[in-house]
């Protein structure tokens, strides 16, 4: 029974050293589907929402009801287009730039947890890894802008570089604010701590995390170069910005990367601030949690119940993240584009100081509450919640710590293990 295995790697235990490779392939194929299908859905959503906002219908024909196959028709059209490379371009860089964008936004999904224990790589510093990977995407865009041999592209690339280098700072600081409340960088652990009523979500943990959620969302919108921060494209000024010279599939790789990273940053927001895969209704959450645990312990008859609980969790997670994407689309078609100096001013003069203030406030908040109320949170004692969360992820991490870090024998990899070995560990 597939559902009974603790992880995909356990299921293939009979395959010797290759079980991790097989498990890695399965995880990768699943994630490629998420990566490919989420842009498919969001491009359709973008067309429909923009249509409604502009008092039109949007796509109505392809696929019948609501034109839901419009993205497929677009995809077929793009595959058929000629793959052009301008003579002025540096062709090696020009051709490889879309792959860097695509690979980096795909790799971000590796550490994003979709439900309790449903993560390809359960990394202890997951948030740090995902921010590091997302910061690689800008390199592909700068390369595309530089190597196109076109002034529009060069301007787009330079704007993107300036914008991303500055917006990464408030993005990381805002992501740290709920991490202070959680005390963990492990995204699975952070998500598990927010079980129970929605007041347990880190968004409602204290006033600083509440503001940090909105600041994070603005910065994340900017870091996906979405309007009103889409200076790198800026159709009205730069024709197409960094992708002016691209056509066909290479052009659409940029778009897949953009929509996938929108989903990724909204997924991070959902795990950090909005309870991840938890429904926010305490009885329901407890029932799902019990179903998962029962199937792990083997006390319940069918392991499929726990599997079903995880499917519901993944659905809740996807709904929250998709709502974030919807708000980004809504903002795009509502707000006018900022000028480049306004974008830089917004970041360096407002968002960076605000996020630093929020970070400072979030570190001081427990101290203020302790002196005033005698405990560190205002909704529920943090000890209980932390204990619950930790317990939950102890199970979770056993279940999932599988691929990208296969069981490497420490004695081989770290020859100087003597110096690294902690001797008397205080428990």
């Amino acid at each position, binding site marked *: 029974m597939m559902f009974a295995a603790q992880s995909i790697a356990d299921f293939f235990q009979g395959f010797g*050293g*290759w079980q*991790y*490779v097989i498990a*890695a392939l399965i995880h990768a194929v699943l994630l490629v589907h998420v990566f490919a299908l989420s842009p498919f859905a969001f491009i359709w959503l973008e067309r429909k929402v923009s249509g409604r906002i502009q008092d039109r219908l949007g796509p109505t024909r392809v696929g019948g009801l609501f034109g839901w196959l419009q993205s497929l028709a677009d995809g077929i059209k793009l595959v058929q287009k000629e793959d052009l490379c301008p003579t*002025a371009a*540096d062709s*090696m*860089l020009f051709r*490889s730039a879309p792959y*860097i964008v695509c690979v980096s936004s795909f790799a971000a999904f590796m550490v994003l947890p979709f439900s309790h224990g449903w993560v390809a790589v359960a*990394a*202890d*510093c997951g948030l*740090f*890894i995902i*921010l*590091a*990977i997302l*910061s*690689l995407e800008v*390199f592909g865009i*700068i*390369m595309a*802008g*530089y*190597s196109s*041999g076109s002034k529009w592209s*060069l301007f787009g*690339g330079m704007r993107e*570089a300036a914008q*991303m*280098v500055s917006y*990464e700072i408030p993005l990381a600081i805002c992501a740290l604010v709920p991490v202070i409340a959680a005390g963990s*960088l*492990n995204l699975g652990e952070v998500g598990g701590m927010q079980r129970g009523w929605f007041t347990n979500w880190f968004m409602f943990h204290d006033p600083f995390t509440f503001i940090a959620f909105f600041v994070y969302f603005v910065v994340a919108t900017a870091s996906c170069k979405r309007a009103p921060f889409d200076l790198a494209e800026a159709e009205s000024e730069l024709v197409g910005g960094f992708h002016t010279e691209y056509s066909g599939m290479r052009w659409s790789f940029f778009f897949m990367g953009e929509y996938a990273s929108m989903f990724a940053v909204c997924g991070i927001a959902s795990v950090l601030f909005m309870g991840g895969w938890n429904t926010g209704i305490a009885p329901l959450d407890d029932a799902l949690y019990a179903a998962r645990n029962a199937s792990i312990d083997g006390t319940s008859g069918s392991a499929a119940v726990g599997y079903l609980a995880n499917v519901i969790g993944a659905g809740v997670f996807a709904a929250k993240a998709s709502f974030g994407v919807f708000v980004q689309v809504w903002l795009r078609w509502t707000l006018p584009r900022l000028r480049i100096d306004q974008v830089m001013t917004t970041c360096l003069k407002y968002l960076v100081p605000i996020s630093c203030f929020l970070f400072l406030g979030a570190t001081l908040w427990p101290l203020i509450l302790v002196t005033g109320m005698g405990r560190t949170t205002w909704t529920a004692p943090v000890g209980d919640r932390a204990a619950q969360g930790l317990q939950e992820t*102890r199970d979770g*991490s056993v279940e999932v*710590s599988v691929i*990208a*870090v*296969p069981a*490497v*024998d*420490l*004695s081989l*990899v*770290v*020859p*100087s*293990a*003597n110096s*690294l*070995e*902690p*001797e*008397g*560990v*205080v*428990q």
Partner: protein
Amino acid sequence: MNGESFLFTVFALATCSGAIAVVFSQTVVRMAFWLVISLGSTAALFFLAKADFVGAAQLLIYVGGTLVLLVFGVMLTASGPYLKIATSPGEIVMGSCVGLLFLVVVYASLNGVDWREPAISLEASNPVVATGNTLRPIGLSLLGSRPDQDLTGDGETLSPGYLLPFEIVSVHLLVVLIGAAYLARAKRRAVGSG
């Protein structure tokens, strides 16, 4: 050959071939591209060795930070398209001498270690190994407390951790920042000198 050694071979080859391509390419931005390949594969090797934090730091600092700034600088300062660096023969001779000397040092030090002797591995009862949580020890060490290292052996005086070097480095960076801002500021003419 099992999965790990296969992945190790792939990433090690990518690291080395990227590094060689950096040396042999002439365009600055192509060099940056090959550096991305090389440094990214190095990060992958760190991930393979279970050093998640170091791998992510490698990606964030070198690939996402330094290289982006490098290309940004090239784009801002280059006078023509595709800035090239022509290497003179003297520089090639100098560079290869330094490289060969470094290779000799690395080879000698690698030969100096007896790799067949089993290294002491971490015990399974160690909480770091048991939970796979490597971040908390690193974070505690940066805050100045190392519960894993007992200096005097009496169980009370713990090692101070990395707080002092961390603070010295941060003060140093602050001094550098102020100095850079001072050097780069717009020079104001003295009033009245016209």
